[in-house]
């Protein structure tokens, strides 16, 4: 007993040092574990730490400057939006600022190796930066159950569900996106897939959504200059979008010129600075990701593996781009009127295309289907991110990052993720929580095999009759 107390005391002391001290040390150890040379491992660890320091510095900006004006604006407009969407990048920093986040990097890579060796998946997820989604799932479960290992299991469950979706949709992803040998096990994009897969089957029954072959002389697919060009110029640039949103907040809150100008520039600063400091964090994780990738190619040379990548590689599709822009105002409108929603879209607004990208793939770029699915998906995203708000606010506080003002909650639309919600709910079931998580993984793996075969046949039929994409 005494031994365990000493160990847990030491762990507690280590964690209490603060995330920007213990996380770099852990990352350095993980780097060494994956075969990095000491110099590179130290640099990688320190780079992650610098990213975390950066995030906590920028976080004060939201808490001190934006918190009060948003409070005032919400009051004036009589809205119930008490949870600010701070964006995915600070959420990533919070995810990695915990023991569970660092542990999950190692454990998920090991689980992935085991699943590949057992031929239960063909996807290797080397997108280590986006492991932060799994870290958040683990963190929330640890928070609500008080059990570290149950949190780890929930994080692993999220990752495994992502691998299976990636497997099922690997062929279609490669066809539509046009990159060979990839799949998307991304913590958010893959989690949006089940809804889109079900909707796709419903659309099959409705003539309005029928797939039509793309003719060679179809002009409308080409980027038309004009209005859409200017819309993309404004919405495609984080800084412009930040200025517009900030101006809106300040004016509605009834501030004077100085106040409005202050909020305007600080909102733009927020949207630009978070990704900028998180870029450090990404840079620190690249060596680990590269080591993992070379391990897989070295040890499984005769397997046809798909490299699991960030959904960012799918954002170039014209349907994703145009539907993404269309969703920017709709996110705002739905957030204001949706009963039960408390999330105020902000940090993720410039990234609306990420909420659409998997619909484009599943619906084979059929524009009507993609728009309809996105409209159905938005309320779900907002509800789940509202649910996650109190948990995330606590996780951020524990990591020493105060993201919002007193009395406000922090969240991000990036939590609008079924693969965070479902494992958390299962883990909370008394006594059998862990069992249910294992069962969910087993079902996903078994069902995944069946679905893989089903969609392979469907894709074959489709490519014979209509082609790769429809309109």
């Amino acid at each position, binding site marked *: 007993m005494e031994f365990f107390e000493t160990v847990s005391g030491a762990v507690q002391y280590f964690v209490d040092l603060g995330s920007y001290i213990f996380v770099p040390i852990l990352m350095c150890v993980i780097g060494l574990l994956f075969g990095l040379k000491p110099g590179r491992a130290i640099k990688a660890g320190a780079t992650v730490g610098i990213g975390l320091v950066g995030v906590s510095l920028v976080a004060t900006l939201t808490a001190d400057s934006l918190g009060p004006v948003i409070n005032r604006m919400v009051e004036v407009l009589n809205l119930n939006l008490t949870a600010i969407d701070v964006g995915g990048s600070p959420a990533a920093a919070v995810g990695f600022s915990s023991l569970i986040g660092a542990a999950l990097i190692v454990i998920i890579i090991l689980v992935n190796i085991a699943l590949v060796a057992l031929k239960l998946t063909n996807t290797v997820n080397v997108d280590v*930066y986006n492991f932060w989604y799994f870290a958040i799932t683990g963190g929330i479960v640890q928070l609500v159950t008080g059990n570290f290992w149950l949190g780890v299991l929930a994080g692993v469950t999220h990752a495994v569900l992502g691998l299976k979706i990636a497997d099922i949709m690997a062929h279609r992803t490669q066809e539509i996106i046009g990159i060979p040998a990839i799949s998307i096990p991304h913590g958010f994009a893959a989690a949006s897939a089940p809804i889109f897969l079900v909707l796709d089957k419903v659309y099959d029954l409705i003539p309005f959504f029928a797939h039509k072959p793309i003719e060679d002389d179809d002009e409308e697919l080409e980027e038309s200059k004009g209005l859409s060009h200017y819309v*993309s110029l404004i*919405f*495609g640039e984080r800084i412009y979008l930040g200025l517009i949103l900030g101006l809106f907040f300040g004016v509605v809150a009834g501030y004077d010129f100085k106040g409005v100008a202050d909020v305007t520039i600080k909102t733009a600063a927020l949207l630009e600075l978070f990704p900028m400091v998180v870029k450090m964090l990404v*840079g620190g994780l690249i060596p680990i990701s590269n080591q993992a990738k070379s391990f897989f190619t070295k040890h499984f040379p005769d397997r046809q593996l798909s*490299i699991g990548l960030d959904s*960012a590689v799918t*954002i170039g599709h014209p349907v994703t781009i145009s539907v993404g822009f269309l969703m920017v105002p709709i996110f705002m409108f739905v957030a204001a009127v949706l009963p039960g929603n408390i999330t105020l879209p902000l940090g993720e607004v410039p990234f609306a*295309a990420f909420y659409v990208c998997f619909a484009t793939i599943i619906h084979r770029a059929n524009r009507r289907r993609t728009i309809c699915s996105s409209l159905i998906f938005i309320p779900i995203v907002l509800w789940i991110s509202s649910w996650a708000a109190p948990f995330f606010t606590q996780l951020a506080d524990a990591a020493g990052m105060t993201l919002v003002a007193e009395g406000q909650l922090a969240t991000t639309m990036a939590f609008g993720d079924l693969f965070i919600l479902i494992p958390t709910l299962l883990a909370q079931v008394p006594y059998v929580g862990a069992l249910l998580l294992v069962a969910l993984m087993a079902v996903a793996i078994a069902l995944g095999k069946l679905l893989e075969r089903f969609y392979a046949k469907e894709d074959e039929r489709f490519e014979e009759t209509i082609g790769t994409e429809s309109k």
Partner: protein
Amino acid sequence: MKQIVIACGAGLATSSMVLDKVESVLKQNGIRGRLIQCTLGQVDGYDGTVDLIITTMKVRKKYQTPCITGSAFLTGIGEEEVAQQIVETLKA
């Protein structure tokens, strides 16, 4: 000094990975370059004023500046060919 834009969906994760590789390709071939990392939406602003655009995804839009898909640096498949393409474009 060559100016190279590297773009991905969010200008964050995947473009950082490609940037890391492009940096070493330039170094190996003795090319001096300035690398600009951005989102796909920001590429329009650089089009026509830089020497090369590298995207992490296949892009259908036509740019004036030569454009290369750098996804090989993410998957590790066909890396050498893309590296060669980059060097040839910059030395041309």
